[in-house]
């Protein structure tokens, strides 16, 4: 970056002012230099691990996605350019999986936003048992997704589960639309507490005085919510939405346990998994990986640029 070495300080008069300005920002006293070195040293191990486990594999996946590479046919490994991408993007399986993933994401995130807002209001305003409610609502957040998914699966198994019995002994998990609804319910149950807690933190930043003033001026509860609470909570809501959307787009565990992706209920992650472990096709599997990565990047970009979501932590350095 702007490392001002002693040699560059020999400058003409006109440049002197500029360099002085720069030096003010990065005064390289012995202490500052030591601080900078320490900063890098302390961050280095974390950075190395994160790059080794994510950046390198992604680059390697880009390379693999350009190859015909089936583990069952090792003698046929060959560079094929973008034909894997053409194969995936022209396959109805990809588009169906993407559609299922987007439907699950949109419904589970929007419903859990509404329920999470209700939960946040309850946690914020309830007069009794605040601790108990908070503790119990953390359990769906903490429970292993797979464990909960088995519970949902058995609950919807005909002649075995209470939910199936309650709905006329339905075999909901064997039908595409009903199975997707069950998956969305399982997602909402699991993720609403997290949403609620993030929103609660945003809610506690809304000054109580403002609410009172509006109440004195005759604003109804709904007006106070839409005109005061919501606008002030916008940053918290957007961050919660960003997190939940990206998390939901990656959905795998619930679908894998509930339906194994059968009957057109597979998400893009399930499709990627199947191509690797059932078809043993590293080339196609990597192509799907890269496409999912691109989708996630697009979603993050839309949130950060489109809605002006402050990426969490971006102003950490300023403090």
């Amino acid at each position: 970056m702007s490392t001002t070495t002693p040699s560059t300080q020999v400058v003409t008069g006109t440049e002197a002012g500029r360099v002085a300005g720069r030096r003010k920002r990065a005064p390289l006293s012995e202490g500052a230099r030591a601080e900078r070195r320490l900063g890098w040293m302390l961050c280095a191990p974390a950075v190395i691990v994160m790059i080794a486990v994510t950046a390198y594999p992604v680059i390697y996946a880009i390379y693999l996605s350009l190859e015909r590479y089936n583990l069952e046919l090792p003698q046929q490994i060959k560079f094929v350019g973008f034909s894997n991408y053409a194969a995936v993007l022209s396959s109805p399986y990809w588009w169906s999986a993407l559609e299922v993933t987007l439907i699950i994401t949109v419904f589970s995130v929007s419903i859990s936003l509404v329920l999470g807002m209700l939960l946040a209001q309850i946690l914020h305003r309830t007069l009794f048992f605040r601790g108990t409610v908070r503790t119990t609502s953390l359990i769906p957040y903490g429970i292993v997704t797979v464990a909960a998914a088995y519970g949902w699966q058995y609950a919807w198994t005909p002649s075995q589960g209470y939910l199936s019995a309650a709905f006329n002994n339905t075999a909901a998990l064997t039908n595409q639309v009903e199975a997707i609804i069950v998956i969305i319910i399982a997602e909402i149950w699991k993720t609403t507490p997290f949403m609620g807690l993030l929103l609660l933190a945003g809610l506690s930043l809304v000054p109580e005085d403002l609410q009172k003033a509006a109440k004195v001026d005759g604003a109804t509860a709904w007006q106070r919510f839409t005109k005061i609470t919501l606008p002030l909570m916008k940053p918290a809501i957007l961050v919660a939405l960003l997190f939940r959307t990206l998390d939901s787009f990656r959905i795998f565990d619930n679908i894998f346990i509930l339906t194994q992706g059968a009957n057109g209920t597979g998400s893009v992650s399930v499709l990627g998994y199947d191509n690797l472990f059932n078809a043993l096709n590293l080339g196609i599997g990597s192509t799907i990986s890269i496409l999912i990565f691109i989708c996630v990047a697009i979603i993050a970009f839309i949130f950060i640029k489109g809605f002006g979501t402050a990426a969490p932590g971006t102003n950490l350095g300023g403090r």
Partner: protein
Amino acid sequence: MAVTTTPRQKVGWTTANLVVIVLALFPVLWLLSLSFKTSTAVLDPSILPAQWTFGNYSGILTSYQFIRPLLNSIGIDLIATLISVVLASMAAYAIARLRFPGKSLLIGMALLIAMFPLIALVTPMFTIERALGLFNTWPGLIIPYVAFGLPLGIYTLSAFFREIPWELEKAAKVDGATPFQAFIKVIAPLAAPGMVTTAILVFMACWNDFLLAISFTSTTASRTAPAAMEYFSGGSIFTVPTGPIAAAACFITIPIIIFVLFFQRRIVAGLTSGAVKG
């Protein structure tokens, strides 16, 4: 807040609280009830077992098919948590306290990894791990868990570290401590509560992982508990393993319940600190 409580408010809030508690707990209680049902009674949709049995629990707890994965889970997740909390505290200290170029790059990178689609990692990592002999070993899971624990750790810890009274560090430096000594002797003890919270969050995240666990393991040598349930079998090929799976699912929920009961306040603080305060 309300100065007095009217009876109507009382009823309203009690109802709201009860609804939340029932919705949050009912699916868990159903699983618990299922785990106490006998192998014939699992095919009965009643909410409570007609006949209670501990057979499912004694079955899984004497089965190598569950005990070994359980030990794998505990070992792998503890090691991964320890490493990521240590590495994350170093980085978070630097972010919260030191001036150095590249800081925002690091924060951006952590954010990127926190949002990373795990499946995108599975195919290339599978190939890499097989080539390096890490497939189906403990390190084969520990390494990715550390990498994905780090962003969570860095965010949570740097939020906690900003709250620490740093004058003490200056005082230590005046007394002749190097920055490193100041970190180890003065700040680390003050940072311990934040580190415990972070450790819990990272452990819970590792404990919950399923995709990496089924992708990078092939035998009980390194398969973790959530991944192992799939491979349970019933007493005979004609019995479904519903009871044992329900028992195992409840069993692996115990640590989570303990964390939540004892550290509720801290978990909430940790979850929200990094995300909302920015």
